[in-house]
């Protein structure tokens, strides 16, 4: 394993320090791996706080999405490990005022347990707090029920929608409602050309043959729906999009946003070629893409590959996606 790190144990703290050192609008909590907006208004003047997070290794998620109009705080666990309940609770205490907090959580057991419990404890302390679960991975649609799907790159859309709602001064209840509704209208599926290597492990989690790919895998290298043969980028985009379209039951009347997301080690050239294929296929299917972005939004360490996300739009969502934010990783 060759990685640009100092010590496998220190990757999370050092990464957060690196991010915050370059971002005057961010600060890191002293005792926890929590990145917060800086400065924050006095508690009673705070809008609903939007908090997200999870295991590290998904950069620029989640610290990259902290900023005016998006997340208020991001909680980082160890690589691919949920942050502790305490860390989440600290983040809530640090940024939530009387208006409360919404926790946007990717649907993994550890995250659900720790964020869920932290929310419960925050409520017990008198801080209104709700959890919004994102389970956008359509890959296992035929094998697991909807509530058990994993949360992957489409989560970034929920960050933006929830962040914009909070910025607009909506109540906790309203923010939860739009965020949940958004989460239900997002579908994502990925493809890996290779595995990823945990800094503390030093070896790839699995190996793929010279022409093998893994379709529909998770962002921690969990198995996907199918180990198959490498094919053209446009073919891959087609397969993935067709799965999402059928799962979300997308019709030509629907308005869409597309996210082409690199998994960590995929160069921009390849992502743009995938974006072209994806847009062409959507056009062919008579679907209207009103917003689309390409980049590395939610990665799986150094995994080569990408995911595609579709999100059903309406005017309010378009406005929310378009709202200015100074979060570093949200594209222009």
């Amino acid at each position, binding site marked *: 394993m060759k990685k640009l790190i100092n010590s496998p144990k220190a990757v999370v703290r050092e990464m957060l320090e690196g991010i915050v050192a370059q971002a005057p609008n961010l600060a890191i909590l002293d005792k926890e791996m929590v990145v917060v907006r800086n400065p924050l208004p006095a508690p009673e003047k705070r809008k609903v706080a939007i908090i997200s997070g999870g295991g590290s290794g998904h950069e620029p998620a989640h610290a990259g999405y902290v900023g005016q109009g998006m997340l208020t705080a991001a909680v980082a666990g160890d690589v691919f*490990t949920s942050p*502790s*309940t*305490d860390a989440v609770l600290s983040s809530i205490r640090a940024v939530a005022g009387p208006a409360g907090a919404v926790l946007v959580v990717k649907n993994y*057991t*550890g995250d*659900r*347990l*720790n964020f*869920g*419990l932290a929310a*419960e404890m925050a409520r017990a302390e008198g801080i209104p707090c709700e959890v919004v679960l994102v389970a956008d991975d359509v890959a296992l649609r035929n094998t697991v029920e909807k*509530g*058990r799907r994993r949360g992957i790159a489409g989560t970034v859309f929920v960050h933006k929608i929830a962040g914009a709602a909070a910025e607009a001064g909506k109540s906790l209840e309203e923010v939860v409602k739009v965020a949940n509704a958004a989460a239900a209208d997002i579908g994502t599926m990925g493809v890996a050309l290779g595995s990823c290597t945990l800094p503390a492990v030093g070896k790839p989690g699995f190996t793929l043959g010279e022409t093998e790919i893994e379709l529909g895998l998770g962002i921690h290298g*969990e*198995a996907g729906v199918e180990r198959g043969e490498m094919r053209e980028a446009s073919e891959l985009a087609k397969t993935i999009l067709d799965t999402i379209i059928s799962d979300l039951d997308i019709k030509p009347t629907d308005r869409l946003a597309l996210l082409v997301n690199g998994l960590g080690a995929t160069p921009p050239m390849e992502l743009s070629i995938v974006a072209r294929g994806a847009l062409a296929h959507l056009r062919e299917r008579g679907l209207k893409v009103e917003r689309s972005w390409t980049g590395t939004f939610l990665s799986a360490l150094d995994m080569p590959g990408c995911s595609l996300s579709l999100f059903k739009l309406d005017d309010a969502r378009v406005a929310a996606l378009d709202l200015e934010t100074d979060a570093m990783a949200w594209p222009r």
Partner: protein
Amino acid sequence: MRTTLSAADFVAMFHLVADRIEEEKVRLSELDGVIGDGDHGITMAIGWNAVREILTPELEEKSITDVCNLVARTFLNAVGASSGPLYATALMRGGAALKGREGADGAALAGFLAAALQGLRDRGKAEPGDKTMIDAWTPAATAAAAAAEAGALPAEVLRAAAEAAGKGADATAAMLPKKGRSAKLGERALGHVDPGAASAAVILAAMADGAARP
């Protein structure tokens, strides 16, 4: 045998849980080694040993709810794995169900277990049959309710729960895992008892023994 359990009795019960978990540590980790990541015994022992530290005599002056909350927080701080938030929730919910009570009778104990189970389910979202601790806790709560309905004393209610949990744990051997780390093993996990279900039986048996002390 006591007709109601006090905060001091809860402190004593949790003491015994810590002892028993320490004794069963190796077996539980071995179970987890087969279908999980092999840390369940160690994890539970770390958590309950931390709990033992805070089970001081002063605690006996507090309410049952406060005792449960403190145990929950301590367990959570010590344990990062799934079991941390799961048992912390169970204990907090169980404690909340006893809020305002000086002592807990058989029915209250059944209520404690039902609330704890609901906490586990809310937190973990596992269903019965998913091959998790839920498959021990569900029959345990049912048996406790039946015993309490029949007028059983606290220790008897807990004994019924412990026995049902033991049977429930054994039954997990025949289940396909759907939650937690063992889920990805699929059929390879067949024939093996779920470690979380096994530890649930240990905990409930220790509580029953603690409640039955003279």
